[in-house]
């Protein structure tokens, strides 16, 4: 066999994760770790973790980490960046954290053009607490608090973060997905561009990543990835929504 491209687990991943089988978090973390390693900034990166499944990042990602109260990751991260402007500061949040309890912090971090990167993993449910409806749960989607499916008359329409944040003129903003290999590579490129924008001092950046929660979607891992590709991206279109500087 001809020489192949070797692949190692990035050095910024230092231990196995404890997510459920098929969970997308482990993948998103690996992409973040790959980008950190490729940019050689693992000693200059500070992460702020949200509450929920994001907490489990603590034992996997080998960078300085702070665990913020629920919803407040971007506020804490903005303060860290203001105190240590030379560092790359990122948040790692779920949709419940960033788009529900922390929507005010998310909006005002973008509005103040805080020079941080929010990584928001959107799986459409509150995972850690057992699959309740989140702001991004799709219409008709069954959860433990919308057992007949999300009814827009009762719970409103799913929240589209990219649309909400667009008007604040972020330096970089994109929505990716990890439902197959090409999209995984694309999502990684979004993370890299966001980090590059921050390191260039350009302002606020945000990457939302559509991710599966097989456990709470009551699907096999494969079915959940298929659902993203066939259903979820219809409501949450992928792509770059803001490109500042030389992007």
């Amino acid at each position, binding site marked *: 066999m001809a020489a192949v491209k070797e692949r190692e687990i990035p050095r910024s991943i230092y231990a196995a994760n404890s997510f459920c089988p098929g969970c997308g978090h482990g993948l998103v973390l690996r992409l973040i770790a790959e980008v950190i390693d490729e940019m050689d900034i*693992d000693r200059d990166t500070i992460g702020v973790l949200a509450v929920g499944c994001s907490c489990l990042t603590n034992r996997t990602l080998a960078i300085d980490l702070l*665990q913020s*109260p629920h919803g407040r990751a971007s506020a804490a991260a903005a*303060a860290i960046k203001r105190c240590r402007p030379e560092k790359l500061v990122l948040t790692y949040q779920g949709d419940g954290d960033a788009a529900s309890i922390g929507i*005010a912090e998310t909006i005002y971090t973008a509005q103040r053009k805080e020079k941080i990167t929010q990584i928001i993993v959107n799986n459409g449910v509150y995972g850690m607490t057992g699959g309740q409806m989140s702001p991004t749960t799709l219409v008709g989607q069954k959860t433990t608090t919308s057992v007949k499916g999300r009814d827009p008359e009762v719970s409103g329409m799913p929240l589209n973060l990219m649309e909400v944040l667009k008007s604040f003129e972020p330096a970089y903003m994109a929505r990716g997905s990890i439902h197959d290999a090409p999209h995984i590579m694309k999502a990684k490129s979004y993370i890299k561009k966001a980090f590059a924008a921050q390191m260039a001092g350009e302002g606020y950046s945000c990457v939302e990543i559509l991710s599966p929660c097989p456990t709470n979607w009551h699907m096999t891992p494969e079915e959940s990835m298929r659902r993203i590709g066939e259903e979820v991206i219809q409501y949450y279109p992928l792509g770059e929504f803001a490109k500042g500087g030389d992007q």
Partner: protein
Amino acid sequence: MRTLMKGNNALAEAAILAGCRFFAGYPITPQTEILEYLSTRLPEVGGQFVQTESELAGINMVLGAAATGFRAMTSSSGPGFSLKQEGISYISSMELPAVIVDVMRYGIGLGNITLGQGDYFQAVKGGGHGGYKTLVYAPSSVQENVDYTILAFDKAEEYRTPVIILSDGAIGQMAESVKLPEGKEHDPNKFEWTLKGKDDTYPNGRKMTDRIYYDFKYTEYDPHIRDRYSAMEENEQMWEEVETEDAEIILVAYGITSRVCRGAVKAARANGVKLGMIRPITLWPFPKKALHKTNKTVKAYLAVEMNACGQMVEDVALYAQGTPVYAYPSGRVIADQEEILRIVDEIRAGTRKEAF
């Protein structure tokens, strides 16, 4: 340098002198001057000022800044202070130094935007979840706003804990002559525990989270917490005694109320009534040593405070060791000297009902 300053402004300047270079907060009466003052003063000294979208963001920005080793502060009052409680609990769990100011107002809910002492419980009893404690300083003058703010930053770092300055609308709004000390330089890089990017000491990065998960064995965490708070309780009690040596009745009061009580002691003494006062300067730890020193000789304590039902009086009763405790919660008005003297007469005559 001696100068005339408003209490809130003096407190804000004291933070600058203590080396505080990060403030995040939200307007609420009667603390807003702290926010206003620092919005211009912090940038002058190269610090960061953020007017946040809410008190929640304010306390959590302080959490982030504190984690980097910067001296950081936020301030609020009443309802806004309630919103900060979760953040204070997190800062306590991470054992980060920070200073939180509550310029108290009166009342439940919206209450009244003027002065009051309505937040004793939520400041002193660990107002957020989980059972933490914070050092609480209760200044009673503009000068003490300066002195205890500077002390608060030092103690916050000594114990790695949030420290609360429990001021009130009167102390915040009044102007008095004040002596400002020399400013200090603070080096945020002097601590090994701060977030500054992983290094050889922490090859996997610092995990700035509840220390319960990372720094202690399962059985070691609870003793650690108990030791930590016991040390503060033993070493940090501060109080002032006014004519307590031969006192028959001792008033217990802090902040603005203690200024009225000081006058009441003087007036009573002029009439031959042996009245004294214990003024707690730290509300947590409550100066129980002061009560234990006097409760063998004194006939009664009278707790005077500016709220509807009495809050501090519960701590007075806790440490009175059987000495009768009486209450004068003055409600939404400052305690009245004549009323204090009248209640003292009732206590001496045996016609006043004990608080508990």
